[in-house]
């Protein structure tokens, strides 16, 4: 299953970034596919992007909500929320493990041989703060003189945007280079920090700052497709703690079985890791 997951990660990354004419056109893909929501975090200003980023879109819609309402347009972001809600209801955070290009990049970086460090569990709450504040509250509340809000997460934090769109667009359009300022520098440093951190810790951005992952995590208890912990086969070996890149702590969390959180453990004396592998990296548990 781990091999299948890798293949699906590659296929989704190619499909959501499937427009390869940008070296000639020097701009974005502008076809009709861009009305489709990307399942993972993938900047829609990336020159190769064929789909839209749900987090970017929702911030843009909320930021422009006052202006839209004044013009009789009820753009509350329902279509975007509906799209990611259906995906969340079906798969939850399984999407992070199987279909997020930025998560895939972090996984590849983590393969670089180095000493590995755990991420303190406390930091995992940060992503909910980013979702609530940077994606919903700030774009809605802090508006300019025209009543327009900014996409706060994209503008000040998102390392995926800098990596997938900022740098490529600056390379493609030299006239944009004159606009580089502190804002870009701030985002560039944040990107470097997360990419460096990804070498030493598993998926640091997903676990501490990703608002889309935080949204999908809300579906942990109600999602349709999930892995189940087989208590009868568990030997308490804690192998799953090392196998899953999201660092679950099954034994420390009561009621996990009831929640059906997606962690599995391998069978005693069984070298196949049949169950363990199936859970390997598929998903974040919280």
């Amino acid at each position, binding site marked *: 299953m781990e091999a299948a997951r890798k293949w699906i990660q590659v296929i989704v990354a190619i499909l959501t970034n499937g427009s390869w004419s940008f070296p000639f056109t020097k*701009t*974005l893909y*502008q076809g*009709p596919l*861009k*009305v489709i929501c990307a399942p993972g975090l993938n*900047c*829609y*200003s990336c020159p190769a992007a064929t789909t*839209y980023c749900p987090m*970017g*879109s929702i911030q*843009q*819609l909320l930021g422009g909500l006052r202006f*839209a309402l004044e013009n009789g*347009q*009820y*753009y*509350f*972001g*329902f*279509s*975007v*929320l*509906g*799209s990611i*809600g*259906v995906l*969340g*209801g*079906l798969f939850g955070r399984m999407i992070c493990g199987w279909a997020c290009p930025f998560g895939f990049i972090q996984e590849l970086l983590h393969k670089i041989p180095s000493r590995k460090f755990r991420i303190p569990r406390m930091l995992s709450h940060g992503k909910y703060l980013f979702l609530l504040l940077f994606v919903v509250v700030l774009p809605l509340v802090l508006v300019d003189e025209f009543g327009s809000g*900014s*996409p706060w997460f*994209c*503008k000040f934090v*998102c390392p995926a*945007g*800098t990596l997938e*769109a*900022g740098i490529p*667009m*600056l390379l493609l359009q030299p006239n*944009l280079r004159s*606009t*580089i*300022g502190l*804002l*870009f520098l*701030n*985002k*560039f440093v944040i990107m470097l920090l997360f990419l460096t951190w990804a070498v030493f810790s598993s998926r640091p951005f997903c676990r501490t700052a990703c608002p889309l992952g935080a949204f999908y995590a809300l*579906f942990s*208890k*109600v*999602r*349709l497709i999930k892995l189940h912990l087989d208590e009868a086969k568990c030997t308490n070996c804690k192998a799953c703690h090392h196998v899953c890149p999201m660092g679950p702590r099954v034994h420390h969390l009561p009621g996990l079985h009831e929640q059906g959180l997606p962690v599995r453990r391998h069978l005693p004396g069984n070298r196949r890791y049949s169950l363990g592998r199936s859970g390997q990296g598929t998903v974040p548990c919280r």
Partner: protein
Amino acid sequence: MSQTSREPRKKRTLRKAPFVVITAFLLLWLIGVATGEPARVLEQALQVCLSCIGIG
């Protein structure tokens, strides 16, 4: 005869919550589509979002 040789089947229950959630979000998506939101999303997605890439 065949009934007695069968092992008792484990009772499987179908969880309703996921279907309720998926249906609710599907309805939300339909409302969004009905208000013409995808056109606005497409309009945004076709432009380079300078803010998104940190130079706006």
